């Protein structure tokens, strides 16, 4: 019944073909695979419910990406920090033994837009124009954000070397 409604089948097709990419981007943004999975599912629920607001002035996939990224933002906002006072406070001179964790931490500290651009470019393999449509910015902004994000990641990798 629901499949006969316009747009739902197309959204389902995007879900079935690109689910891995959606989950990877959301995991990169949230840092928690379980929360990312929930955010993606909620994003698609929102896409189905709000599909009437899709104006068709861009690809449907970009619009669905926008729904999922909004759900990711909402999830990140809901994930309030919990203070663990049973552990000693981290010392500033503490040396991280895991170099991957060091890079992950630096990526987490990047501004939200740079992280979105980085993950959409590498995990979803989207071009600048599509990323710009998803984020509602100019393609030049995407290029600049990606350049800065690249520099940050390269810097972190050089530190590890």
């Amino acid at each position, binding site marked *: 019944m629901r499949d006969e409604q316009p747009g739902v089948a197309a959204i389902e097709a995007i879900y079935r073909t690109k689910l891995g990419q959606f989950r990877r981007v959301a995991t990169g943004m949230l840092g928690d695979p379980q929360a990312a999975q929930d955010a993606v599912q909620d994003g698609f*629920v929102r896409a189905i419910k709000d599909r009437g607001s899709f104006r068709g002035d861009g690809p449907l996939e970009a619009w669905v990406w926008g729904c999922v990224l909004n759900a990711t933002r909402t999830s990140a906002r809901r994930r309030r920090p919990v203070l663990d*006072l049973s552990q*000693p406070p981290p010392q500033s001179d503490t040396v991280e033994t895991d170099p*991957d964790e060091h890079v992950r931490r630096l990526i987490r500290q990047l501004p939200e837009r740079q992280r979105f651009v980085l993950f959409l470019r590498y995990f979803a393999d989207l071009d600048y124009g599509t990323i710009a449509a998803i984020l509602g910015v100019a393609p030049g902004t995407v290029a600049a954000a990606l350049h800065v994000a*690249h520099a940050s990641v390269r810097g972190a990798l050089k530190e590890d070397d």
Partner: protein
Amino acid sequence: MNDERDHVAATLERLYPPVIGGPGWDDVLARLDAEDSPVAVHRERRAHHIPWISRRPLLAPVAAVVAIIVLAAPALAFSPKVRELVGLKSPAYVPHQTLVAKVIRVRFHTPYPRYGPPLVTVTFTVGEAGKAPGTGVPRGSALFVAFVGKTGTQTQLVKAHGSQGRYQATGRAPVGGIENILVGGWINITPKQSPTASKGFWIPVINLYTPE
């Protein structure tokens, strides 16, 4: 340049491996049905629109409670215990001999509020050491929490709510962050457990890191 991009791509691949498994399209449809269910729609409507008629029966009891508070406030203000509870007078607490507190969770309501330090809810248990929460805490006891800031300043006591040894208290964090949490209480010490005959104690928190 391309080598560096390949290096970044390889690093991201390693740091964030593909996610396998998990719920599928059926789960999306189930969530959609749950949102569209009559119960969910009714709940959503109630959240956004409460008709005036539904509030009217509440007016009388609310007015009565407000009147009692207004009339009782001057009398309460002169009570030494109330003055201690609201922080006007420092309570003469001593550490409790048998009870210990264990902090289970510290949750920030808004991590970065626009104005002032954030509200924090502390969930904790109180009981005799090595026994179930609630043991040794007689009825009529009242428990409180205070935060110690990183500069050593201590916030006022906030009353905890709960029962059977498990409590929650919500208060404003000190400026600069929380260094430690203090749990205190008025523990009933009379055999008849009269709510008026109690004594104030600090209850040692056994699972917090305390700097040497």
